[in-house]
């Protein structure tokens, strides 16, 4: 019998010592050379105090010297104005790129929370939602939402976007900017704004994936993305951000606070995605084997909780663009408050979900802690610019409770199968975020001279109004602000849920919106794409008793339309 011996890597011991000495000598020579080189250079401006002075102003503005005349002052003012807009463009584009990166986070999150046999399908949905919804938004969605939003002071006006249809100051739909051409919208300001807004729409677009995962047909999903990019998201988004009637509830006959206020889209983006996801999950029905005959729910553990955690952290990082970018400019220094509030709420939400699942179920639940973090982020998205840090923590704590109760309610009571918690996180916590503005806004933002989204008075909610001794029921007072928020939350739900339910109730008469039962059981990777995400692994056997009986019956439990199975 032979005993195995392992020779040390890299030849004999003596050679290794010799090589080690050579490497050490070369490193030493390199360090000495670097020190010698440093003595030959002159220090141009290592502290940065000399770079960016009068000479740079002259080079930028094209004048030869700063003249003490009206002409000279005008030139100075022009350059300063251009500089401010340039700073805001940089801010808007970079925060937009951060929001774009959230797509990566979401792909990780939802793929990790579903089963390995569907991982390719999940990733393909994340990829295709991006490209399809983007083109739909480019063609018509952007014009519907922002065709009449001008002027945007922070971006130099975005002056072509003046096409608005509505009643008085209350807009219903915009119509400049179709294909980024109509209404002379081929313009740097418009396109900078488009980049930031299209990635927001993408967020609403991919939220639905979490709730329809593992059973939706790819064709139906593409239809959902076209609808999201062209209609569902832009119309309600216009009412809130495009000069529409919800944002004008403070004017005219209603005089409700400053009109409905949604800073970065708890409602416009997240609740819209969440309620559309609710409609789709209800029409599709639960996954095969999700519910037993006695109505109790089975767990389908996600195949990679590491993906889910990575995804959550990437989303949190991206949110540093989502919320602070919504000032549309770095010249609005409120961005620091926005960023810190966002992180506070995220952490509070995660801690509550972690502690609550530990108390209730015996151990902290990893995926629910992820959901708790996202719940805090979603909820603080509308109020983040209008609140003090303590309120961000309070909003995050409540969001942590909202999300765990919502997940249990949907799973056990309502029997709506939401594999990744999309409805709970984005729908319920989005709604909470809209209301939170009317409760926690402390009257420090926006500044009267600058404004935000047409709001020229500071927004104040109920709790700070009570603490300050304000009259709650005054015209434009805190209660009327909360009233505007309630209207916004209700309208957002009715629109996103209603229009999505309508579209897919019609669509299921013409197409298979759900994959055939055998494809669902074998895995949507193979059935829908003929390719699997993990071809080198034997996937885990599933032993849910419900599957066989449903296969025998040849139908899916919801009675949703399914296509014929491939031969």
């Amino acid at each position: 019998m032979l005993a195995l011996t392992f020779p040390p890597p890299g030849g004999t011991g003596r050679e290794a010592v010799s090589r080690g000495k050579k490497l050490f000598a070369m490193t030493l020579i390199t360090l000495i050379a670097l020190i010698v080189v440093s003595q030959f250079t002159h220090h141009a401006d290592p502290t940065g105090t000399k770079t960016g002075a009068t000479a740079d102003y002259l080079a930028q503005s094209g004048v030869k010297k700063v003249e003490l005349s009206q002409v000279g002052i005008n030139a100075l003012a022009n350059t300063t104005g251009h500089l401010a807009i340039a700073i805001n463009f940089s801010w808007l584009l970079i925060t937009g790129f951060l929001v774009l990166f959230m797509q990566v986070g979401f792909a990780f999150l939802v793929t990790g929370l579903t089963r390995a046999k569907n991982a390719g399908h999940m990733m393909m949905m994340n990829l295709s939602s991006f490209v399809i919804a983007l083109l739909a938004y480019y063609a018509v969605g952007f014009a519907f939402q922002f065709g009449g939003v001008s002027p945007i002071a922070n971006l130099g006006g975005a002056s072509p976007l003046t096409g608005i249809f509505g009643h008085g100051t209350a807009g219903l739909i915009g119509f400049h900017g179709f294909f980024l051409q109509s209404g002379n919208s081929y313009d740097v300001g418009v396109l900078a704004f488009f980049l930031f807004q299209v990635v927001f729409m993408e967020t609403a677009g991919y939220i639905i994936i979490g709730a329809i995962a593992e059973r939706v047909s790819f064709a139906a999903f593409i239809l959902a993305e076209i609808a999201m990019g062209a209609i569902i998201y832009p119309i309600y988004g216009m009412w809130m951000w495009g000069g529409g009637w919800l944002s004008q509830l403070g004017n005219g006959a209603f005089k409700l606070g400053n009109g409905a206020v949604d800073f970065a889209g708890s409602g416009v983006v997240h609740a819209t995605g969440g309620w559309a996801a609710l409609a789709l999950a209800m029409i599709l029905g639960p996954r095969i084997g999700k519910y037993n005959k006695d109505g109790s729910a089975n767990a389908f553990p996600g195949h990679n909780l590491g993906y889910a955690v990575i995804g959550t952290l990437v989303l949190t990082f991206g949110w540093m663009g989502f919320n602070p970018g919504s000032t549309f400019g770095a010249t609005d220094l409120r961005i620091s408050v926005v960023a810190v509030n966002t992180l506070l709420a995220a952490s509070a939400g995660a801690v509550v979900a972690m502690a609550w699942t530990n108390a209730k179920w015996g151990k902290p639940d990893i995926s629910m802690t992820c959901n708790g973090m996202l719940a805090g982020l979603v909820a603080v998205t509308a109020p983040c610019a209008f609140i003090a840090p303590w309120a961000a923590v309070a909003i995050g704590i409540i969001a942590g409770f909202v999300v765990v109760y919502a997940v249990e309610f949907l799973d056990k009571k309502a029997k709506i199968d939401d594999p990744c918690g999309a409805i709970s996180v984005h729908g319920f916590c989005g709604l909470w975020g809209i209301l939170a503005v009317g409760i926690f806004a402390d009257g420090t933002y926006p500044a009267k001279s600058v404004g935000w989204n047409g709001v020229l008075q500071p927004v104040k909610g109920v709790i700070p109004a009570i603490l300050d001794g304000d009259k709650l029921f005054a015209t434009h007072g805190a209660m009327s602000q909360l009233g505007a928020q309630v209207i916004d939350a209700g309208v957002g739900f009715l629109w996103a849920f209603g229009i999505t339910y309508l579209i897919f109730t019609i669509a299921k008469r013409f197409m298979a919106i759900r994959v055939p039962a055998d494809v669902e059981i074998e895995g949507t990777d193979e059935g829908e794409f003929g390719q699997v995400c993990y071809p080198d692994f034997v996937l885990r056997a599933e032993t849910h008793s419900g599957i066989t009986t449903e296969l025998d019956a040849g139908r899916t439990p919801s009675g949703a339309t399914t296509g014929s199975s491939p031969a």
Partner: protein
Amino acid sequence: MKIVIAVIKPFKLDEVTAALRALEISGMTLSEVRGYGRQRGHTEVYRGAEYEVDFVPKVRIEVLVEDVDADKVASAITDTARTGKIGDGKIWIMPVETVVRVRTGEAGSDAL
């Protein structure tokens, strides 16, 4: 010749391998398996829904030995893989008709 098959707790693998190497066995085969014995599975909660972990992850090792070495190998595994708690696993020994080394075609004890 005999084959010793053992199903053990995965974290005990290194200790068992070291003990078997000390006995100068000629090789071993390893597979990652799942199963249950008298300890049965256990219940966990995922997002609020309970689920049964029916099969617990285990490592299965197989060692081909001369007849005289079988008990020695089995007791080495028993000594190193034991924690004294439920789920420590099982060992079983079976006769082997012959063994062939693929590279040379040697058969029987020479192929071990």
